[in-house]
């Protein structure tokens, strides 16, 4: 129904648009033949421009119909996008998790070697990893 309305609006707009073109052509012919004076010509021209404005108004209506018809498609597109974004995020999480594993190994090694400064540094890294995983989630 919406589409039929849009097509109808568009068709009427194009007709008005064409009418204005015809009016202009006729007007200029009459002006060349000196059949109308300046003031009459200006009045006819004004009517032509009003026709053009009316046509433009209908083009806005038609554009609004198109946008309204988009609602469903746009919703579906956004849904598809958000699913994909979720997948990209999962991969990021995986990478962050690998970081964490690496730093945990360093921490284990540091504990094994019993070096307090290394333990503190490693703990700091682990803390950062946990925070970045939290950020992603």
């Amino acid at each position: 129904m919406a589409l039929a309305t849009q097509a109808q609006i568009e068709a009427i707009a194009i007709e008005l648009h064409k009418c204005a073109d015809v009016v202009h052509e006729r007007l200029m012919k009459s002006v060349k033949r000196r059949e109308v004076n300046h003031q009459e010509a200006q009045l006819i021209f004004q009517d032509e421009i009003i026709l053009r404005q009316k046509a433009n108004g209908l083009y806005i209506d038609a554009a609004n119909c198109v946008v309204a018809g988009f609602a469903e498609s746009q919703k579906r597109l956004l849904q598809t996008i958000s699913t994909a974004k979720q997948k990209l995020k999962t991969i990021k999480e995986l990478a962050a998790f690998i970081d964490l594993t690496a730093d945990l190994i360093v921490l284990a090694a540091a504990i094994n070697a019993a070096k307090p400064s290394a333990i503190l540094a490693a703990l700091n890294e682990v803390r950062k990893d946990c925070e970045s995983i939290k950020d992603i989630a």
Partner: protein
Amino acid sequence: MRIIQAVLACTFIILLSGCTNLKEVRDFAGQSAKLTGYTELTTRFRDTYYREQPYLSEEVHTFAQQNDARRKAAYQDLLKVHQTITLYLQTLAALAGDNSFDISSGVDALSVGISAHPDLGLEKHEVDAVSGLAKVISRWATSSYQQRALRQFIKEGNEPLQTTLSGMEKLIDYYQQTHDNEWQTIKGLLELELSFNEQPEHRLLATLARAHAQAKAAEYEAAAKKYREARKGIQTISQGHQLLADNLGKLSRKNVKDSLRQLSKDVKSINKHIESL
């Protein structure tokens, strides 16, 4: 040690052959996103009244102002159409990205971490071998994950995207018709008034009006070209995405890649053309 070397050799072969190359998809999506992100024509539509206003008579202003208010009200919704399509194409480019599904930097960190601690009892070349293997396996796993994610994305997205693209083409059509009315308003006024001002005493006025008409003609012709190019661009994007949707399982085939490369080139040259106008 030999076993590790053999495994490594095999895995590099897998790495080279199994590696999904989605460069064509990525390029196509990237160029297309640039085109749909181009909102100048929509803005031009919104600003119609600003340009036509000096040429309108008092009586026409009321109609023109009503249209102006309604175009301004529609503007945000029209921009949203651009945004949704552009976001979709950018996501497509990201899904086809080389690094989007790459977790090898994480694996590198792992091997550096281990190497830094010789007290763990692992030698450097052993660590390298293990991390190389880990990289290949992770890449292999993520690459199939990427392929599936991409295919599902295109499959789900194709129908709503095609609908939205054809709607966008309609919108460009309306912009162009409005633009034509605007040009006829300006051209018609100058044409009409010039025919009543051909007397020698109005020579200066007539000359200025003709020069103005000439400059305006060039401006409106350039804009008209932009509408034509933009419409061609939208059609090319639609064709390209349909190609992807029709060849979901065959994205790495040569003929698909070649067609896609050609379509990207077309979109790219349209982008360049629009920018140069």
